[in-house]
């Protein structure tokens, strides 16, 4: 078939959609999005594509944004921190209004959002994609001031640089502890990828040092693959202690630099303490989290169960069995953008297809993955039979290398899709 005939056929098939497009073009809608991470930025760009007449505002916050994906690799020199920082120039070029201020509160009835600089924004739909709030204060003896002593690096940026510097200062016979909070938290495999990459770096530069993972959970994602790899590569130089092995952190002492569980006292050279988490403050306004710390949503549209004119995406939302990952957040953002564009056009939302893949690096050049594909119903997100699973246990080395290359390919793509950067 030649090009013009295909075009004619395509255009002919698309005629009914043209009418709805015109109807939509006359309907002026205002969408305000809070959060300039993977969820918020992806939502903004897909709304611009699928509902071009919308007035779209993206509230970015006041700090620069560094991607959490690949920030573990930055700890060991595989990426420079500056490479993780994203530019928002492409978003501005697509006629998305960018605001560098902090969202403070909203009124779901009056449909208004207030910012910390005194400005007020009116909206027809509000999308909240603010990510997580870390709660160091929830750990006895810990607080924000002590995150300099016990870096979390769970929001990438200066903390990533700090943790990397502290790793490089670990002595040759040093002890590094990574403490993992009880789930749910952002990036379920993140602590274990971090342990892998830190152990990899230490084995080369501080061969007498060891890593202990203190875990408040009894098991973890891809645990069979991680544990097998750790045994083979590091033996007892990388040890995992789960909840049943007194792994749950009870207390820290920032003056002594010590770490305490129910039965053990540790005196590490470096302790990376990942604090418990909940949805960021703006997503807990107006009872949006129904008192649970995370926001219940209708998974077909990601509209809040509490205030349906407000959508919640990404880490702040309850989207189990999807994990709190950048991949899941972007997938949810596309589904939400499709639903909102359909609603402004007076159409039903298309069937929601949700996906996740979490790649994890075992070393800078070897990787594994977990994936799942889901369909949303009114009540739940359901994994489709046979779609969920992890990399095979007996993967050849070249396949582990291919997974690591695919991880980088995904990262480039997810960044380009969300930020045009």
């Amino acid at each position, binding site marked *: 078939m030649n*090009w*013009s005939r*295909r*075009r004619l056929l*395509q*255009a002919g098939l*698309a*005629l009914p*959609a*043209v009418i*709805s*497009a015109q109807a*939509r073009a006359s309907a002026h809608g205002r969408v305000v999005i809070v959060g300039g991470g993977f969820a918020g930025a992806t939502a903004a760009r*897909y709304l611009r*594509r*699928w*509902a071009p007449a919308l007035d779209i505002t993206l509230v970015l916050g006041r700090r620069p944004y560094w991607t959490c994906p690949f920030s573990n690799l930055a700890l060991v020199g595989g990426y420079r921190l500056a490479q993780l920082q994203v530019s928002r120039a492409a978003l501005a070029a697509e006629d998305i209004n960018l605001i560098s201020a902090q969202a403070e509160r909203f009124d779901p009835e009056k449909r208004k959002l207030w910012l910390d600089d005194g400005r007020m924004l009116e909206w027809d739909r509000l999308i909240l994609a603010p990510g997580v709030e870390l709660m160091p204060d929830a750990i006895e003896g810990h607080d924000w001031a002590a995150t300099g002593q016990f870096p979390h690096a769970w929001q990438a940026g200066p903390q990533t640089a700090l943790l990397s510097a502290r790793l490089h200062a670990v002595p040759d016979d040093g002890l590094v502890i990574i403490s993992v909070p009880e789930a749910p938290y952002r990036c379920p495999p993140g602590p274990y990828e971090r342990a892998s990459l830190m152990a990899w770096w230490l084995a080369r530069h501080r061969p007498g040092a060891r890593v202990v993972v203190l875990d408040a959970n009894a098991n973890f994602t891809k645990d069979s693959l991680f544990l097998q790899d750790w045994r083979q590569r590091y033996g007892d130089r990388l040890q995992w202690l789960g909840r049943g092995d007194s792994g749950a952190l009870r207390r820290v002492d920032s003056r002594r630099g010590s770490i305490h569980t129910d039965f053990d006292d540790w005196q590490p050279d470096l302790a990376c303490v990942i604090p418990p988490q909940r949805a960021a403050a703006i997503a807990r306004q107006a009872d949006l989290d129904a008192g649970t710390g995370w926001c219940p949503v209708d998974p077909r549209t990601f509209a809040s169960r509490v205030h349906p004119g407000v959508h919640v995406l990404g880490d702040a939302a309850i989207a189990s069995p999807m994990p709190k990952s950048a*991949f899941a957040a*972007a*997938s949810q953002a*596309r*589904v939400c953008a*499709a639903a909102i*564009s*359909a609603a402004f*056009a007076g*159409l039903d939302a*298309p*069937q*929601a*297809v*949700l*996906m996740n*893949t979490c790649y994890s690096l075992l070393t800078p050049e070897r990787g*594994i*993955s977990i*994936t*799942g*594909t889901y369909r949303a119903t009114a009540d739940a997100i359901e994994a*489709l039979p046979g*779609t*969920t*699973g992890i*990399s*095979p246990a007996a*993967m050849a080395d*070249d*396949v*582990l290398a*291919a*997974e690591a*290359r*695919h991880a*980088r*390919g995904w990262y*480039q*793509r*997810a960044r*380009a*899709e969300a930020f045009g950067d």
Partner: protein
Amino acid sequence: MRLLAVGLAVLLAVASVTATATPSQIEVLAAACNGCHGKQGAGSGAIPPLRGGSELATQLRAWREQTAAPEGSGHLMMRVARALTDAEIAGLTAHYAVDRDDAEAEASK
């Protein structure tokens, strides 16, 4: 002949409007594919491009039925393919065939 040209121009304009309208089921699904495989399935680093046509349909069906495995990967697509119905495989195959032509037409300008 001129009338045909005018008609074609109108249809082309219409087609460009629909390219940015409320997405169809297949467009939402393709957006999920593009989340890894690049804009219009053009590929991203080591993640291969999606080309429409019978080869894509044959591969997706074989992976779904587990009668073949994708080369040089951790079998991730064997799990993803299980999510797809026959109608969706046909829709995606057609989608990427059209998109590929558009992308090549753009590139040759």
